[in-house]
């Protein structure tokens, strides 16, 4: 419009715009704000998932210095195991979910016992390669046993959408928000009010000093793998009814969780949670408003920009904030 009439004044423009808006029905502007709300709701729910996965990354990183590339595989295992407990053993969902979380936790324990613990003098880089090996191995096993099909987990309480403030919310979204909230509270309580949680924080500040005051560092490392596996599998289970699951869903989810943890400055507290929520929301808005094909690229562009501006993560104030 501006190009066609370069001589038009600002007044003309306002009239033209007003005409343009009234021409479209008022309903359409309502739609836009509703749509925005919709993007934000779904963004927050994926963000909550990223936050849970990111917490797993941060917890292992803080106790061992390893970036665990098998974190995404915990996510995949949670969903796949729940599905197979339901279909093969005919278990109800209520039983299958805790069982799947427990099974993934056991896998996390075996993983730590067999590969991380025996290596005393390994460099962090070779430990990272080992976690990549484990992720390839787990993915391969699941692919062989469960095949390459994409399957959906039944929603926890139906698929009837609820309408809240103009946005349509699936019951599963509410489950995600509620369970993530619970996990964050439990996480806080554990790290700040329990002996083993405090011991884990001590390990993350200084492993040598922690072992000098009598903390069993090896046990703390094992705990960190257990907690991460449990968190990851839970994230995988609660998101599976919305996004479906397959043997390879862990890759992208894992990377996004890693993004969330980095934005949060690798803290195993609120930083990573907010990092995940920001990431999820911006990604969902970007996918909806700009282009869905570039959805994943948007997440990483945000991340790169953040890293360039604040190389230490968004919320990192000092060493004492790290857990």
């Amino acid at each position, binding site marked *: 419009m501006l190009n066609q009439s370069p001589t038009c004044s600002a007044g003309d423009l306002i009239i033209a715009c007003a005409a343009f808006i009234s021409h479209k029905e008022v309903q359409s502007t309502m739609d836009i704000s509703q749509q925005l709300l919709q993007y934000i709701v779904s963004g927050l729910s994926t963000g909550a998932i990223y936050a849970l996965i990111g917490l797993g990354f941060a917890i292992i*990183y803080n106790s061992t210095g390893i*970036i665990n*590339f098998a974190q995404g595989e915990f996510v995949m295992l949670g969903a796949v195991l729940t599905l197979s407990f339901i279909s093969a053993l005919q278990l109800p969902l209520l039983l299958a979910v805790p069982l799947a979380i427990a099974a993934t936790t056991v896998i996390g324990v075996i993983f730590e016992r067999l*590969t991380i613990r*025996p*290596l005393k*003098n*390994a*460099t962090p*880089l*070779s430990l990272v*390669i*080992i976690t*990549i*090996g*484990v*992720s*390839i*191995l*787990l*993915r*391969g*096993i699941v*692919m*062989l046993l469960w095949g390459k099909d994409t399957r959906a987990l039944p929603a926890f309480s139906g698929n009837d959408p609820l309408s809240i403030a103009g946005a349509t919310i699936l019951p599963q979204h509410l489950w995600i928000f509620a369970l993530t909230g619970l996990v964050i509270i439990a996480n806080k309580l554990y790290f700040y009010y329990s002996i083993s949680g405090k011991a884990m924080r001590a390990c993350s500040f200084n492993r040598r000093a922690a072992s000098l005051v009598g903390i069993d560092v090896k046990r703390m490392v094992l705990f960190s793998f257990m907690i991460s596996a449990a968190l990851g599998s839970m994230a995988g289970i609660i998101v599976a009814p919305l996004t479906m699951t397959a043997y390879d869903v862990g*890759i992208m989810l894992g*990377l996004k969780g*890693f*993004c969330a943890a*980095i934005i949060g400055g*690798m803290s195993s507290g609120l930083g990573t949670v907010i990092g995940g929520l920001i990431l999820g929301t911006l990604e969902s808005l970007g996918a909806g408003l700009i*282009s869905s*094909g*570039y959805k*994943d*690229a948007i997440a*990483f*562009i945000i*991340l*790169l920009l953040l*890293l*360039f501006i604040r*190389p*230490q*993560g968004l919320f990192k104030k000092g060493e004492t904030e790290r857990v």
Partner: protein
Amino acid sequence: MKREMVKFLILTAVVLLAPLLFTGGYLMNVLVFVGINTMLAVGLNLLLGFAGQISLGHAAFFGLGAYGSGILTATYAVNPWLAMLLSAGAVALLAFLVGFPILKLKGHYLAMATLGLGIIVYIVFNETVDLTGGPSGLSGIPNLSFWKLTFDNDFKNYYLIWGFTLLIMLLSINLVNSRIGRALRAIHDSEVAARVMGVNARLLKVQVFTLSALISAVAGSLYAHTMTFISPASFGFHFSIELVTMVIIGGLGSIYGSLLGAVLLTLLPELLRAFQDYDIIVYGLLLISMTMFMPGGLVKGIPAGIALLLPGRRRRGEHA
């Protein structure tokens, strides 16, 4: 230095004579890939093994080189050698510009940033369908030719690729044994100490990052011209990880180690064909166990293994 020359000449002889032993067309094809992967691993090792800076997005530079050459030659009919030069130059410039903000980061932040860069580039390959052909790929890339010789079969490509590989290895060996190489290792051990000694750490890191990207881009151009078809799947996150694995399994900070790593990880999937569907599991297990039991990589692991198998020789070796 003399020993280095002897080692390199032996390698050259082996590479030149190898085709006489393996006349099978399929194996020649695999060996072409080994050459390309060796170039990539050597390039990445300069950054990761010598300067100590991780990159989880090196497949992006490889892909940019390949697509640069591919698009210029297949769509715009530019001379392949000129296309290679142009795309290598463009990738180097890009790496140089991106290098400054990225290499300011350290540790896992650097890992994440390079990983993100790799994924963004991969998505761009997939989404810019008009330019790259999208997920279904870009075909019709011409072979390279020199006077009347066209590199159009595996045998000719073998010599072309390995010529480049040996050249890049020689240059890298020279580089790491030079003043610059010592400065890089100083940065690896302690950046602060290196800076105190007068090394411009920031610029040098960006320069080695650029060189590494340049080598990857050249490898990418060669890949495009030998394959004549490229698709985004070859340049994803997985390949970046595989490159890092080659460097680490081979041995950090050893040019010959990168050669060994590239040879092993390129041949391994071919050898594991016998396991059929189980190959990915065996691959994962091997990766885990090799990293666990050979922490110094193949360059240190193989001599140690031989010494372990031949206790008599080891004892004699110790006395000598």
